[in-house]
């Protein structure tokens, strides 16, 4: 090991550190030593050989090179898992941002979108042909009182009506008036284990959805049987649908037939399983 000062002085910068900034200070020092007798001190500009400069710029270029790692997004196989991770991360942040007590904005009746301008969105049919007289909600999973529940039992719970914004993943939004029972009241009635992680629902049109427990217990989350103070129409999900002002539209399943309280999801939801956000809280 040779000490630094035995190295030839003619090679400036030989011990420049690979820091964020190239260090030409050593060179400046040399300059000052060489011209100690100059009376008028000027701002001294370090002199660097072209070769030395080329080395420095090459090294600086390599430091920026990690940016090309983003190119992995262009590899089809890796792309899918990378984007899935990005979406999962977004969902994780979404769940952290959700606040149990924070209410979605509500609106005056004058701000309501007229009922006939409230879009009807399905993945399959407008009307899956539910026979109302025979309809029951099948309750299962981590509950004390599983079984078939009639609409009258849901309607016997305290009714909540609110004007809230309905946001579709496509980008449009409407303000609607919804009425129903708080899902949290229903969960109390069926003796649900609210320490379980999820609620899943099945629908008459084979649509399916899931909901995190925190959102299920939110005071604005409704088992909805009314829109605009009238019984739910078939196209809007009669006899019972979910209304969740803190969630995106596709979470708010219509024509409910099954409800389960569970800790495990074998599938998340119809759209989620095709690549849409699992949590999508607003």
């Amino acid at each position, binding site marked *: 090991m040779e000490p630094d000062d035995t190295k030839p002085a003619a090679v400036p910068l030989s011990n420049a550190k690979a820091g*964020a*900034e*190239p260090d*030409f200070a050593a060179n400046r020092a040399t300059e000052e030593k060489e011209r100690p007798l100059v009376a008028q001190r000027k701002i001294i*500009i*370090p*002199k*660097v*050989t*072209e070769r030395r*400069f080329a080395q*420095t*710029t*090459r090294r*600086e*270029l390599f*430091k*920026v090179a*990690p*940016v090309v790692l*983003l190119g992995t*997004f262009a590899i089809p196989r890796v792309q899918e898992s*990378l*984007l*899935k*991770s*990005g*979406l999962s*991360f*977004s969902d994780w942040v*979404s769940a952290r*941002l*959700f*606040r149990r007590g*924070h209410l*979605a*904005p509500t609106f005056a009746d004058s701000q309501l*979108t007229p009922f*006939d*301008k*409230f*879009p009807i969105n399905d993945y399959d049919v407008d009307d899956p042909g539910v026979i109302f007289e025979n309809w029951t909600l099948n309750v299962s999973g981590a509950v004390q009182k599983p079984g078939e529940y009639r609409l009258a039992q849901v309607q016997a719970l305290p009714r909540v009506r609110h004007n809230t*914004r309905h*946001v*579709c*993943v*496509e*980008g*449009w*939004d*409407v303000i609607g008036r919804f009425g129903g029972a708080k899902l949290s009241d229903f969960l109390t009635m069926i003796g649900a284990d609210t320490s379980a992680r999820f609620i899943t629902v099945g629908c008459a049109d084979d649509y399916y959805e899931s909901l995190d427990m925190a959102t299920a217990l939110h005071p604005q989350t409704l088992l909805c049987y009314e829109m605009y103070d009238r019984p739910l129409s078939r196209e809007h999900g009669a006899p019972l649908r979910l209304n969740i*002002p*803190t969630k995106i539209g596709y979470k708010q399943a219509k024509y409910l037939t099954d409800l389960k309280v569970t800790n495990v999801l074998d599938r998340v939801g119809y*759209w989620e399983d*095709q*690549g*849409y*956000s699992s949590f999508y*809280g*607003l």
Partner: protein
Amino acid sequence: MSGTVIELIRTKGDETETVGRAVYEHPLLIRLCHWLNAISLFVLAGSGLQIFRAFPSFGAKIPQKDLLQWPKAFAIGGWLGGALQWHLTFMWIYIATGLTYLGYQFFSGNYKQVLFTHRDIPGVWPMVRHYFFFGSKPEQHEAYNPLQKHAYTTVIVLGVLSVLTGLAIWKPVQFSWLAWLLGSFHLARLWHFLIMWAMIAFVLGHLIMVLLHGWNNFVSMLTGWKKDPEY
């Protein structure tokens, strides 16, 4: 430190001759942020336009009046769900580089090179005259001329606004105050869209200027060093 100037020399035997100058303009962190941001901005605009295709309007859903039919070939993601995946992934890179950039500029003092202030106002008109071919080029003593500073400062403000409007669209309930400040969820979506076009306009102008100002200028954003600067 940005602003460091060196003299380039060539040695032949005992003789040395000065062949040029170089200035260190862009610290490493700024360069990394620049390129990460450029890529994420490209992906965000492309996937954003695919998302827009799902409802290409800012009016009511019923009846729906489309604003424009953006061609699928100039969008990223292929379908709405795919585009949302790209958007919700790259927005984190965009936010991270944005915050890193702002933090670095602030704490290093490097922002003085970019920030447009009242002291730059007198230099605006001479520069406009020069750009529109009826004035000689004003003398330049720093990395950016007043119009450049104005453009960069504006686009940084737009960048911040793009995140805020995006947040209001993504989380109109949790950030209901933000959506309210922006007029509503509905309007926030329109601002988000317009900000994107403003940023695309900046990028186009930026690219034209890079082409006009040559190779050394482009290379400086890769290596940090600009050879033969104009100042």
